[in-house]
């Protein structure tokens, strides 16, 4: 049996065969067992908001067209979508809140320069506690606008103001959106979608942006860094600890203590050659960006990694952590440890993260992993040999330095490259994995197609890991995959054609790059005028929907696959795919395959290029000074008169 339809990653395919041999069930098996998926649910037509129902609308128009309360398909679809967005925004923003808290308690600041910069921006003393307090206030703020929102181009902010969707406070927008979806509150589907955008903006320009900034202050601003990705990074002779989830607070500490001499000695005593920390999902991206730690895989690798039998301990915190992990881990000696007070898991050990003494928690976890290592059965270890080199660690802050050096730092070379047509546009390809499509297939198809069309690709999250596994994050990939123009630019700067900018909260870095491009000038007045786009080719989580919506609300054309559950409403679909463009400048493209997505994106980039009238070079004509001007400001005459030769 081949598993081509489950993943295009050979490591994953190998592990799926192994899983079958072990008799282990994975997400794909469970997903298969779910078939056929609920049609009403998939169309977004099932309403369980109140307890009169659940109600469902007949998509063929034969039976009931409204729920018990009278809500029609459009309202039900919009309401379901809005709840999804609220949940996604809540997840990101709670992550933001968590790291702000960590900033308040911090004893070490890795990046004092950024602290200083942020303190200036936020109008507080250069003190992490003061900054944390000010940032924390954004969550409960009632009036707004959110402070980081002021980074957006003026024109963009005017659009939001006009639509009445400028977010006031992060929590407020989420709460208000949930309120509006309560039974019998907002009945206008489009008004509800605008409300959802408001909450989404509070995520993108609020919670997520704050999370990224604070993490940079706490753990250091990333620099371009080398590492490796895929299951092959697991070390047969070392203690393997996988960190999985989203928040870097504990994982950074685990990385740090894994270098402690006494723990290394302990590991050696247990017969290990060292301690290997690798990541899954966005935690992987966080410690990759800042520490260069290897990446074991993306979302759909979480169970497969456990099946190798080489993982001694997996520590998880929040988001995208499958409840199935303890069962899968049970195939081997692998220990699952939960750390967040928000995420418990039957079958896993809870080692509560102590915010005031993270080091202690981290050391306890590493010790526990060493202990687990001694129970590892080497004969049952099966690590796929696949791993790939990569370069990651790009940010809106270091990219200007890479483009221009310390003195001429800036985005001008990038803008010039876009203007000159060497780069056709810049596209952020982000998001998850989903068993609904073969793992990584959409990411790779889209990214490869864009590269060949001279599009510079910027990635985060599981999408970036997909590209990493297939070598697209190597600088050499420019020569292998990029069109001639992009190749020239990559060769000039020494960057890969795909820039990994971090985890899914770091999508805010992409917003920041766009803001900087607008600010540098020559590319229009707001984000919607730039030849840029976004894509989520294998979206799975609610956060992905929120991210997609804040991208659209920020004026960015966004290709989203698989489509969220909106097919049941022509009104919702039309608004998100067409009408919203007049309001925010951005819109969705719900493409069912990557050919359509790529075509749509390229057409959009070309349209924006055309609108900007990106002109070829114009030389200034130097006309030699004539007339009086040729006398010059100075004394040419006098001087040439003075060169008397011998008589």
């Amino acid at each position, binding site marked *: 049996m081949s598993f081509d339809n489950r993943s295009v990653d050979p490591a994953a395919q190998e592990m799926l065969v192994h899983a079958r041999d072990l008799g282990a069930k994975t997400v794909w098996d469970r997903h298969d067992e779910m078939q056929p998926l609920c049609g009403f649910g998939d169309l977004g037509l099932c309403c369980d908001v109140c307890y009169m129902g659940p109600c469902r609308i007949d998509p063929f128009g034969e039976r009931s067209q409204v729920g018990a309360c009278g809500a029609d398909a459009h309202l039900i679809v919009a309401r379901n979508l809005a709840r999804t967005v609220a949940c996604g925004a809540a997840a990101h923003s709670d992550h933001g809140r968590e790291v702000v808290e960590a900033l308040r308690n911090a004893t070490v600041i890795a990046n004092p320069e950024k602290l200083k910069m942020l303190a200036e921006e936020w109008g507080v003393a250069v003190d992490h506690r003061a900054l944390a307090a000010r940032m924390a206030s954004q969550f409960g703020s009632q009036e707004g606008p959110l402070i980081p929102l002021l980074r957006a181009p003026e024109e963009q902010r005017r659009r939001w103001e006009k639509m009445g969707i400028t977010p006031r406070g992060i929590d407020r927008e989420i709460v208000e959106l949930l309120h509006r979806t309560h039974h019998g509150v907002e009945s206008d589907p489009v008004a509800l979608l605008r409300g959802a955008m408001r909450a989404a903006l509070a995520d993108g320009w609020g919670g997520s942006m704050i999370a990224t900034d604070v993490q940079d202050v706490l753990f250091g601003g990333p620099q371009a860094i080398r590492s490796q990705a895929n299951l092959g990074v697991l070390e047969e002779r070392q203690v393997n600890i996988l960190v999985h989830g989203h928040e870097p607070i504990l994982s950074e500490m685990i990385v740090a203590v894994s270098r402690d001499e006494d723990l290394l000695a302990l590991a050696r005593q247990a017969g290990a050659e060292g301690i290997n920390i690798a990541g899954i999902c966005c935690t992987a991206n966080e410690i990759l960006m800042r520490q260069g730690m290897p990446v074991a895989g993306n979302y759909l690798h979480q169970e497969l990694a456990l099946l190798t039998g080489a993982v001694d301990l997996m520590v998880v915190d929040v988001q995208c952590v499958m409840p199935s992990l303890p069962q899968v881990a049970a195939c081997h000696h692998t220990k699952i440890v939960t750390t967040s007070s928000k995420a418990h898991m039957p079958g896993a050990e809870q080692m509560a993260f102590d915010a005031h003494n993270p080091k202690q928690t981290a050391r306890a976890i590493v010790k526990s992993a060493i202990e687990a290592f001694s129970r590892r059965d080497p004969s049952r270890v099966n690590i796929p040999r696949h791993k790939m080199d990569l*370069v990651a660690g790009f940010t809106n802050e270091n990219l200007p330095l890479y483009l221009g050096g310390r003195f001429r730092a800036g985005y001008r070379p990038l803008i010039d490259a876009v203007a000159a047509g060497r780069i056709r546009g810049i596209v952020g390809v982000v998001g998850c994995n989903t068993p609904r499509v073969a793992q990584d297939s959409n990411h790779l198809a889209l990214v490869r197609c864009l590269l060949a069309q001279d599009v510079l690709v910027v990635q985060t999250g599981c999408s970036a890991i997909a590209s990493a596994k297939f070598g697209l994050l190597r600088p050499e990939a420019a020569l292998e995959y990029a069109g001639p123009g992009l190749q020239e630019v990559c060769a000039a700067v020494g960057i890969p054609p795909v820039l990994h900018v971090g985890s899914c909260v770091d999508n805010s870095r992409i917003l920041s790059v766009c803001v900087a491009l607008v600010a540098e000038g020559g590319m229009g007045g707001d984000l919607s005028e730039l030849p840029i786009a976004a894509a989520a080719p294998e979206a799975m989580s609610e956060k992905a929907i929120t991210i997609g919506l804040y991208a659209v609300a920020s004026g960015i054309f966004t290709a989203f696959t698989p489509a969220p559950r909106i097919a049941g409403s022509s009104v919702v679909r039309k608004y998100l795919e067409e009408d919203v463009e007049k309001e925010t400048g951005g819109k969705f493209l719900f493409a069912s395959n990557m050919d359509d997505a790529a075509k749509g994106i390229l057409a959009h980039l070309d349209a924006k290029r055309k609108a900007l009238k990106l002109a070829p070079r114009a030389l200034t004509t130097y*006309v030699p*000074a004539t007339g009086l001007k040729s006398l010059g400001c100075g004394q040419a005459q006098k001087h040439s008169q003075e060169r008397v030769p011998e008589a």
Partner: protein
Amino acid sequence: MSKIIAEAAIRGAYACMNRAEAMLSEAIHRHGRAKSIAFPDTAYALPVILALVGKRVEKLGDLEEALQVARTWLPAPPTEKLWLPYLGGTLDAGAATLVAHEAVEAMKPRLAFDFWLGPTPDSILREQGIKLVDGRMPGFAACVGAAPSDEVAEQLARDLQERNILVFMGGNTGGETMAAQLNRRGVEMNWETFLVPYGPDTSSIVHALGFACRAAFTFGGLRPGGIKETREILLYNKRRVMAFVLALGEVDDEKYATAAGAINFGFPVIADTDIPEILPSGICTYEHVVANVAHRDMPSRAVEVRGVKIRTVEIPIPVRHGPAFEGERVRKEDVAVEFGGKYTRCFEYLTSRPMDRLQDGLIRVVGPEIADVPEGARLPLAIFVEVAGRKMQPEFESILERHIHSFLSEPMGVMHLGQRDSVWLRISKKARDAGFRIEHLGTVLLHKLRNDFPAIVDKVQVTLFTGSDDVEKLYPEAAAAYQHRDERMGALTDESVDIFYSCALCQSYAPNHVCIITPERLGLCGAYNWLDGKAAYEMNPHGGNLPVKKVEVVDPVLGQWKGINDFIQNASNGAFLKFSAYSMINDPMTSCGCFECIACILPGTGGIMIVDREFSGQTPVGMTFSSLAEMTGGGQQTPGFIGIGTLYILSKKFISADGGLARLVWTTTRVKQKLGDKLRQRCEEIGQPELYGKIADETICTELEPLIEHLAAVEHPALALGEMI
């Protein structure tokens, strides 16, 4: 691929830095950290280090600190596989290389041989660099290495000269240098010919970048400091200084490193060899490195890559021409034919005629041609130019006539000196052999007048009299015209006109400054008087000179008018509210960086001193001209300091609000010589004929204390006038 360049440049940067550090530790070992170090006659210490590191290096110890800073800029070289971004690091390595180069240049013994010029003093920077400022030069070329042959080197140099491009030469290719090649071809190399050989080492080309940095300081009013200031200095060069690097011959690691440094300034590299290219733009305006360019295409390709297209004027004469040839001398043994000097009468006379009296384009040689006389012959000459035009006015005649000097200096192999009836003109054998005849002098005048003054000159007719009878016959008419013009000019006063002229000729380099030119106060550069402003406006109403109405008098003593003040407020975006034409204390006029002289008050003397820009020594105020220029230039209003044209000293309105000429207690011998009898005459006019002798100069003293003693001894009138502030 540019990774190869990055590797080479970063390697080269390390090598340069190591060398500089080794030299430095040797020097410190020998002389100690307190040993002072400097380039001659500059206020900008080691200018590249000042611009990039923000540090004024005066001692070896300072240099040590600067090198330590620059070393931290050196990145790790890119790896063979899985490399990290290298462009930014390469640019940083380039900047560090320039710091190292400048350190080496400052430490190594001065070249005192051959044709090498070495570092450029500020005085030359001001005099010659101004050509970049006012648009007479489109930019400069920094040539590194040597051409494949002497002939190619000369061709390249001539091609660049013809485009008015200043040529800096440095470095060598396998021991050969472009300057040596030109020298063998007998090409004259100095600032006047736009050919400047710095030295045979790659490091010497750093002087070209020092020139660029100082242009930003001097004309752009920029100040060194932190990274932000450095960025501004580099961007100033990217935007305003149209310079580029011509890499001749093999490009080694150190040349790559140096080129990377130049790219920071936005100066692209054009190479004649097949090196990797960097085409995407951004740091430079267009391509960064272009390779494999044939020598004859280099100048045109270079200016295009730098973002300029140069329009040249074709004149049908058999020799090259352009301002760069203006500086060439024709030596005695090279003369084919000679006019004037102290041997024969030679004068030029331009007059206007009614339109219908002229046959446009007619050039006549009346008398012997060049072929009719033996080699080295001395002939009399009258250059008689008649022009007509609908907008021609008699007062423009002298302005056009003044241009004959530069017009006739431009053909290669023709030397022109003097004006009016003191002309000395030589035509070289080389020019004659190329086919140049006396008639071609007319061709040049015809084309230049038509091309340079199209708004006022519609018809031109030139007659060249080379027979002594004809010359003598025309002379009285010319002499009468000279006298008449002088009298009319003398009668022009600030009160007799309603309009002054603004001058923003140097605004592309000095954006914060604007001059006001009145009949009795010429532009501070010394090149532009009120009539020039008038003519310039007449020729181009949208040019750098605009008429400014005086409107009502605000203060007749200070020289303030409502119209002028309104204009200044507007032109300076509100930075300045008023200008005084006759005071250096109250609201003095601002200066760009082009001033011919600086006048500044001397506390304790009740007087002022005036120092000209060619004077490099110490002055009684305790500052050199360069240091004074820093305080005075850049468009700032500094009471007690003004930039002036030398001739303003002779004006009746010379700081008349502050006490006038009687305040002058010290100046340079050069100023005294230049003004000579006219200054004596002015002293008499103000009723103090003995004043001239009381004005001290550098031969008497260059310090304040002895000056005060001198003034007391000679009873200088300034002492009685009291302190100015």
